């Protein structure tokens, strides 16, 4: 069994929130930690609206192409630059490709990049954070490395990595998948530092707690200690960092695409669609606005969800 985190001891020393430290008056029949988090999350109105919108966007890009069955790369040169018609609800681009289908396909790539890059960043960040926090010998060197990475100029380096390695990678793995791999790993490798610092801090605090001492006294080996006792208890900061990481990754990917250094032209992403539309923004402003609004809306939703999660996971606020 994992040790349930004793939330009250966290707040015991905090005089500003006596209400949270007192035991709940009438506990519901089976209150789990995640049930509590969900209850608190629901009371954050902005986060709930954002969650609904985000699910809507996910459905739009994942289920949408099953209903709207036009190939996003199908070129119909006679139907180019059309306005909003019944056949093409959001119009067509300069090659007659359907904008609605392209937005859905682009969204799939953008969100996939966001999720994968976040997963990589969180994996590296948690790994480094937990090892630095748990093993005292590794703490110094790993934190030096983190500081070094924090001092790197990230956007220039990302631009550099993507330009330099796009050719060899797209030859080995195919144009689309090679670039996907490159962008995802480049973003992941340059955005794990915040997560590592947060996780390390949490682990350092956890190590002083009684249940860790208890677990150690019965001879728990290090790997089980980390997997069973440490990781479940640092899950909440990791989840908040992960949510905010998705937003940053989506923005970074579209920025790269916007600078012409992202995916190849026939491979739509939201950033790429925006970049392609900029040349004709005077005549067809809607083509710029749709992908831009979708990027902003997704990032806004993710940020709000992260905000709500942070509040919901913070035991000092919960129950107020």
């Amino acid at each position: 069994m994992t040790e349930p985190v004793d939330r009250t001891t966290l707040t015991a020393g905090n005089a500003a929130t006596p209400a949270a430290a007192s035991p709940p008056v009438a506990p519901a029949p089976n209150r789990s930690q995640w049930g509590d988090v969900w209850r608190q999350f629901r009371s954050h109105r902005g986060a709930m609206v954002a969650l609904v919108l985000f699910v809507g966007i996910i459905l739009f890009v994942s289920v949408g192409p099953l209903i709207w069955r036009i190939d996003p790369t199908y070129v119909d040169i006679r139907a180019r630059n059309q306005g909003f018609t019944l056949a093409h609800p959001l119009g067509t681009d300069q090659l007659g490709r359907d904008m609605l289908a392209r937005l859905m396909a682009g969204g799939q790539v953008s969100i996939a990049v966001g999720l994968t890059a976040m997963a990589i960043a969180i994996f590296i960040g948690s790994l480094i954070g937990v090892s630095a926090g748990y093993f005292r010998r590794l703490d110094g060197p790993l934190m030096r490395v983190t500081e070094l990475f924090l001092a790197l100029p990230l956007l220039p380096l990302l631009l550099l990595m993507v330009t330099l390695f796009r050719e060899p990678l797209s030859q080995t793995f195919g144009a689309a998948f090679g670039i996907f791999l490159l962008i995802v790993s480049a973003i992941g490798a340059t955005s794990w530092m915040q997560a590592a610092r947060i996780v390390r801090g949490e682990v350092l605090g956890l190590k002083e707690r009684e249940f860790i001492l208890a677990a150690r006294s019965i001879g728990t080996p290090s790997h089980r200690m980390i997997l069973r006792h440490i990781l479940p208890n640092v899950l909440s900061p990791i989840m908040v960092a992960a949510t905010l990481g998705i937003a940053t990754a989506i923005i970074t990917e579209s920025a790269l695409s916007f600078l012409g250094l992202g995916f190849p032209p026939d491979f739509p992403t939201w950033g790429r669609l925006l970049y392609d539309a900029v040349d004709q923004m005077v005549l067809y402003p809607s083509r710029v606005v749709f992908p831009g609004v979708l990027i902003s809306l997704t990032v806004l939703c993710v940020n709000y969800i992260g905000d709500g999660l942070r509040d919901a996971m913070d035991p000092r606020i919960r129950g107020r």
Partner: protein
Amino acid sequence: MLNFTIRRLLLAIPTLLFISLVIFLLLEASPGDPLGDVPLTVPPEVRDRMRAALGLGEPWFVRYVLWLKQFFWVEPLHWFDQVFGTGFSDGMQRIISFQSRSAVFDVIAQRVPQTLTVVGMSYVVGILIAIPIGILSAYKQYSWFDQIGTFVSMIGFSMPTFFTGVVLIIIFGVNLQWFPSVYDTTLQVRDWDSFMAQVRQMVMPVTVLALYNAAQISRFMRSSMLDNLGQDYVRTARAKGLSERVVVLKHVLRNSLIPVVTVIALGLPTVFGGAIITEQVFKVNGLGQLLITAIHGNDIPMVLTLTFIFAILIVVFTLIADILYGVLDPRIRYD
């Protein structure tokens, strides 16, 4: 404090050396060839001579050390000569751009003013907007002003600058024709008219960057004010009978500015990085645009030098932020 500063400065040296090595090796590992555009009809021996002329014949560590020498020794000497009219750097090779065949630092010096006027201005405007908004929305927490302010700042940092920039161009540059959409760097401010033209072309890029900065700083300001408003000394100040104005603007504001000042210092180098995109949108030929053309053109010395300058900015401003924090907050002791 002095001890701490010296120690940190000494620590910064290996950090910077390591970063420069990382950038250098990254460029070294790249398959791109600066001679890639040379026609295939050029015979191989001529091609080899061209490589040697670009300094590409040596092994990488020789070139790395040579670049370090040029960056840290030749360039400062050259600068010294320029100022005092001496001749220490005569005959020494400066860092030369592959693309333009002129000294990298001369090109950078031409581009810095554009970046500084746009980026610097936008940062100042952003701070000036953010601080009052942060104060007010913390003081009236959960009021409609606070709700709207929080929402707008959320939108502000969720909208990527390339989208806000393009939208502003469509609305104010194309439809209303108020401001020019392309930044004209050849414009020289001589009289009132050219000054107004300069102001008008700066409005949109500055707005875009200022909005983004203001969104982040105002959130910091708000949470910092909230932390301080709940402190005991605020109650004491009110109990003494001080006016609300003095309590908020003198006691609380001064204390809550401490973390905000460090955040502002920490954010400065990232603004240079973020300006890469804004410069691209408004066609400002500043440092960011220089970096992108250099990357596209395989101009290794230019990319290396520029990226390294960005790294120096980050390290220096992190140090400044730490020192400022220690100076402003006497409770912080680094020793």
